[in-house]
């Protein structure tokens, strides 16, 4: 698996249990995963299989009930809430299915949002946000608000926001799930380019085989465990 490249993510014996009243729901059980630097990994599986939960654990949005999550040599499951937030700001770019753009901010301001947490000057923030918009081909829409953009454009803005801090890891939760085929293909082209040309490590959750085909590796999550092949 580690074909000469450094290992970026190591998930070791991770359990994740949710509590609903007195009921315990075991979503992930003893899960192991290694992701080398520069990989484009697709995670597939039926609804409720734990794909998004795993993505949340990789991005430090949630903590495992047991086991460890190591990214870039750092045990993120051991970080305090405050340090975990700082870690996310520095190392993780998130792309959501429904874009999650702020409707009250224009495209440029939305992309600039993660940079507010840095010490960059206003001018530098603007420059960096414009560069990110340029990469996703959305410079001409910088002053438009999300409601004025198509779904594909909104997702491009979402990707620009995710890459604006130059994160170590790009996590995409069904990035084409709300788009038509053409727009979805454009987004996948963009993710592929980010992976191939800029060496971004990408983990993408998807239901779509067509989307997963763009990844360098696909894993299937079934009943809380990972397999190389879908369950028959």
């Amino acid at each position, binding site marked *: 698996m580690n074909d000469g490249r450094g290992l970026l993510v190591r998930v070791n014996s991770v359990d994740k249990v949710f509590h609903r009243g007195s009921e315990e729901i075991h979503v992930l059980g003893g899960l192991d995963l290694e992701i080398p630097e520069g990989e484009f990994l697709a995670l597939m599986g039926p609804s409720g299989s734990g794909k998004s939960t795993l993505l949340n654990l990789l*991005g430090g*949005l949630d903590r495992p009930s047991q086991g460890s999550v190591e990214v870039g040599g750092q045990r993120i499951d051991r970080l305090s*809430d405050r340090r975990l937030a700082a870690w996310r700001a520095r190392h993780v770019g998130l792309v959501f299915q429904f874009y999650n753009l702020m409707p*009250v901010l224009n495209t440029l301001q939305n992309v600039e949002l*993660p940079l*507010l947490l840095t010490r960059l000057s206003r001018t530098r923030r603007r420059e960096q946000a414009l560069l990110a918009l340029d990469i996703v081909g959305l410079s001409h829409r910088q002053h438009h608000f999300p409601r004025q953009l198509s779904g594909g454009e909104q997702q491009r803005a979402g990707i620009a926001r995710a890459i604006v801090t130059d994160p170590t890891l790009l996590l995409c939760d069904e990035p084409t799930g709300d788009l038509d085929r053409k727009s979805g293909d454009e987004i996948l082209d963009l993710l592929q380019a980010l992976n191939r040309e800029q060496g971004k490590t990408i983990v993408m959750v998807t239901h779509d085989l067509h989307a997963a085909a763009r990844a360098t590796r696909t894993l299937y999550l079934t009943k809380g465990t990972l397999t190389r092949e879908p369950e028959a």
Partner: protein
Amino acid sequence: MKYLGLVWGNLKRRKLRTLLTLLSVLVAFVLFGYLAAIRQAFSAGVDVAGADRLIVRHKVSIIQFLPETYEARMEQIPGVANAMHMTWFGGEYQKPTNFFAQIPVVPEELFDMYPEYLLSDAHRAAFLATRTGAIAGRRTAERFGWQVGDRIPIKVVAWRRKDGAGFWEFDLVGIYDGAEKGTDDTQFFFRHDYFEEARAWGSGLVGWYVVRIDDPARAAEVAAAIDAEFANSPRETKAEPEGAFVQGFANQVGDIGLIMTAIVAAVFFTILLVAGNTMAYAVRERTSELAMLKAIGFTDRGVLGLVLGESLLLAGVGGGLGLVLAWVLVSTGDPTGGSLPVFFFPARDLAIGILLIAVLALAAGILPALQAQRLQIADALRR
């Protein structure tokens, strides 16, 4: 400052709701400012009352007269520095609603007793030299457009002249200013010798006395000595510190401070509910956005700060504009046309207003902000 755009943008999300909330807060603070000015007007005399001055009136009521001869007797009492008498004239200028106090005085005694009434040397000399002379406070002079040299006719029912006339005429020889903002500069003083000579009845009687004492710490003791001096006489006295006298006057209307506080408290409680409701909705309807902010690296405290910032901006803009508007309205002057001579928005109440803005912002925003702070990212993103 870099988060201001984000905070302001969130408030603009529901423009009508934000506008209505802003207006509610604005109206509350206008009311606060205006009521503060009214309360100040009622207590102004108390605030600027001389600690070394006593008021001596008839024991039964201030409308009962005292003999003019009491002045010399009072000045013999140990602890009394000097005394002067005043009498309520109660006239009207042009029409009954043009209310202001007119008081006959001995000019030298007035200047000595009330150094806070500032008068130029020329005006002072003119008042001493003119038997029909009068001086008016700056506010009253400006109210009626009086100039030094004007002849002021005052109609009075209670004090008819010996010649049967109900009109008195005075020559305005001076205009005085107040040394402090709360000093009453609406009064009209004229000479007692002119009054004494021309009035048809009541010769030798005066309304009340103002007594300066040597040591304010001995006020109660000196007041008791004055009352003892005239005990068992046909006209017994009641002496009390000037502040207590003015406060007693104001209390005839009611406990103004308590009434104002009750009104302001009721208004602010209502506004707290309005602003709190706005903030609660503002947070509830964008749970996923707040989760997104946390996901991209905003800390729990950062999100708490953003929501509190919105609350502070809402209360700050509404309350700030309200205080400014209250100041503008109060600056237009006494709304009663003379019954509240000292009418202004005190700096102390302005500071309280600013503090109230902060309290309102915190109280309205803290629960939604804590809710936002506790938001679990993974759960909230699924909603």
